[in-house]
């Protein structure tokens, strides 16, 4: 089943988190948003996919490639952007290497000592990440993630990149606090570690600020208390928690020490007391329905 929607409702960060957690392989396409003049279920402007703006490829939950409409996206462009080829060199090469695929060209450039393998990997990574970070700042584009595609079909150099780091770095760069505030709307909730923290934290690069938050992670400390202990503003803590949470490094939970707020009027609904036998009779009845 394809996953589709609009970044307004489900952000790129959330999509990356979903793809990371479910270990997906496939292509994420993001389109220009074209208003239809209709309204959606939320009363917001309904938006249809227009021209494709970017494509991001994943393998087994890792980011492997990205391209952006309006850029050439071939290896020459990648190396040029990464400072390994000058404009002039790029121009000559593009003439000479016409029709050569990226992989073959890479071999030739390495053979001719133009660049080495690490240069290519580093340039591709940088190129891909730049596109992804910019996509993470979009917030009204329609998207579609498809799984039944052969991501190796085109001749592209795929470099696997862990999504956790991408998500955290993307959150650091997010300029709009709007999405973050929508997501982390209650600072009186607490944080806890995920089920297999060791695995999750392996290979993740946290900043000092992020570590300062992580050391207070405990279902007894509210986000607000953690901010206070670290002398952070609400916006600081929101941004950090958002990144950590989206990367699957912490989970947001209700505090374990304080009881859930009981409505003052004690109107809080009491669960019905029924016997097992009653439930079993209901089950039998339902089973008998065709």
């Amino acid at each position, binding site marked *: 089943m394809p996953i*589709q929607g609009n970044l307004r*409702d489900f952000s790129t960060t959330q999509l990356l988190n979903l793809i990371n957690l*479910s270990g997906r392989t496939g292509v994420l396409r993001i389109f220009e948003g074209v208003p239809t003049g209709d309204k*959606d*279920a939320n009363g917001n402007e309904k938006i249809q996919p227009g021209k494709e703006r970017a494509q991001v490829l994943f393998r087994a939950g890792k980011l492997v490639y990205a391209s952006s409409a309006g850029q050439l996206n071939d290896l020459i462009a990648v190396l040029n952007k990464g400072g390994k080829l000058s404009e002039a060199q790029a121009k000559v090469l593009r003439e000479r290497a016409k029709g050569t695929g990226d992989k073959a060209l890479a071999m030739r450039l390495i053979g001719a000592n133009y660049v080495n393998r690490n240069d290519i990997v580093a340039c591709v990574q940088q190129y891909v990440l730049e596109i992804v970070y910019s996509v993470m700042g979009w917030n009204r584009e329609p998207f579609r993630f498809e799984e039944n595609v052969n991501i190796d079909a085109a001749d592209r150099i795929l470099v696997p990149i862990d999504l956790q780091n991408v998500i955290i770095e993307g959150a650091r760069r997010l300029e709009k606090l709007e999405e973050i505030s929508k997501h982390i709307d209650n600072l009186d909730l607490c944080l806890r570690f995920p089920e297999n923290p060791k695995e999750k934290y392996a290979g993740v690069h946290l900043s000092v600020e992020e570590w300062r938050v992580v050391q207070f992670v405990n279902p007894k400390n509210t986000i607000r208390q953690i901010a206070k202990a670290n002398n952070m503003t609400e916006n600081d803590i929101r941004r950090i928690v958002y990144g950590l949470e989206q990367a699957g490094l912490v989970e947001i939970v209700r505090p374990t020490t304080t009881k859930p707020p009981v409505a003052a009027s004690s109107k809080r609904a009491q669960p019905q007391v029924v016997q097992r036998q009653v*439930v079993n009779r*209901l089950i039998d009845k339902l089973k008998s*329905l065709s």
Partner: protein
Amino acid sequence: MQTVKMVITGPYSSGKTEFIRSISEIDVVSTEREVTTEAERREKGATTVAMDFGRITVDDDLVLYLFGTPGQRRFDFMWEILAEGMLGFIVMVDSSKPETFREAKSILETFRAYAPTPYVVAANKQDHPEAWSPDDLRIALRIDPEVKLLPCVARDRSSVRDVLLELLYAILEEMEE
């Protein structure tokens, strides 16, 4: 005679009325009225205002009532009243409308705060070509692994029955603890 009650909740147009209609032995006593805004009208003709009400009779002395909540926030004063004394609840989600996921999660949390009863989440409209799969919905809505998230087509009686059964099993499991 003993009566027990389950509540079907979820965002606007997620399929609550349809769900109850598919399984109730009486015509659903619906307090629907024509939708008022232009956007809602395009979506569907009628919305539930106070509640839906369905019934499944087990025998002379046991009846199950199904209550559907109004999906629109402007009618949410009804929610707490409907939640009173419920055995469990079902959160219906329109799997084809990601713009309603956040609302679905917020309704789920609200109902959880009303009463500590078991609940399940129904990923409805699985027959829709744009429906998100239950597994993706679990991540999108951040549903705990121990909570059941079930595929559902509210128009299909056997699918509705299966969701109700899963809720009953969850209730049994809770009793065991």
